[in-house]
């Protein structure tokens, strides 16, 4: 299996909340550099907590890999996430409000021996905050 397939399988495992599969794909001490990940436990437990947090906020959460490519030990993915805020977003202080989100992120994953050992991502948080009614739309939108 090539590295791109490994990263695609991780997204599928997150969607299925299949944490046995997640533990096969992520190194236990995976280092995540997404803004906000400092609020989570280190390593794989933080990744699982983040996914569970997303399901708490958006129980119908689904992701779709829009683009994926790799070079050597690194894989790039552009991922879209949709869902409905029926659970509230605790870290942002936003209560449940039944608003739909459609947001995305770009991630670079570094693999070693077929496992993901490090990730860097940027998520389009402003887009999500506007959709949730927590932030005004920028001028011109």
């Amino acid at each position, binding site marked *: 299996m090539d590295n791109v397939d490994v990263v695609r399988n991780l997204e599928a495992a997150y969607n299925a909340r299949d944490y046995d599969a997640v533990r096969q794909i992520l190194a236990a001490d995976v280092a995540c550099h997404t803004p906000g990940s400092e609020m989570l436990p280190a390593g794989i437990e933080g990744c699982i907590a983040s996914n569970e947090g997303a399901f708490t906020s958006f129980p119908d959460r689904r992701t779709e890999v829009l683009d994926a*490519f790799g070079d050597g030990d690194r894989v790039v993915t552009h991922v879209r996430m949709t869902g409905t805020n029926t659970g509230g977003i605790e870290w942002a202080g936003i209560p449940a409000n039944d608003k739909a989100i459609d947001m995305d992120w770009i991630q670079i994953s570094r693999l070693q021996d077929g496992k993901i050992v490090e990730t860097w991502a940027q998520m389009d948080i402003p887009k999500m905050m506007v959709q949730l009614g927590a932030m005004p739309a920028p001028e011109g939108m």
Partner: protein
Amino acid sequence: MTTPQENAATCREFIQRVLNEGDISYAEKMLADDFVDHSPMPGTAGDKASAIAMFTMMRAQTPDMHIEVEDVVADGSKVAVRSTMTGTDTNGFMPGMPPTGKAFSMGGMDVLTFDENGLNTEHYGIYDIPGAMTQLGLMPPPGG
């Protein structure tokens, strides 16, 4: 047909010359005429002309801006760039915002697509704008 490595080198040169040095002529040369930005500034067309206007605007708002390329991943016609922009908020983080005079650091991810002549045809980028605005005191931290 340009190689992924050549396209990656173009990305590095583009950031250095256009964003860090203000050499707009390199953007005129390397953006395809039918260039499409899939993440344009709100209220802009996302075409070649509006992208070039945005580069000029960024340098006007933050004259000491510097983008450090942290990583480049290239395959086929695609290149991803992970970067950090630093600068001093001298003329407003965005046009119309009051300048704070404070320094900021903003992570970014870009994905670019190149045509067979090595010209940049498409762009998609996501930047840690909330992080930078929090550093400048323009936004409360998450949840606060």
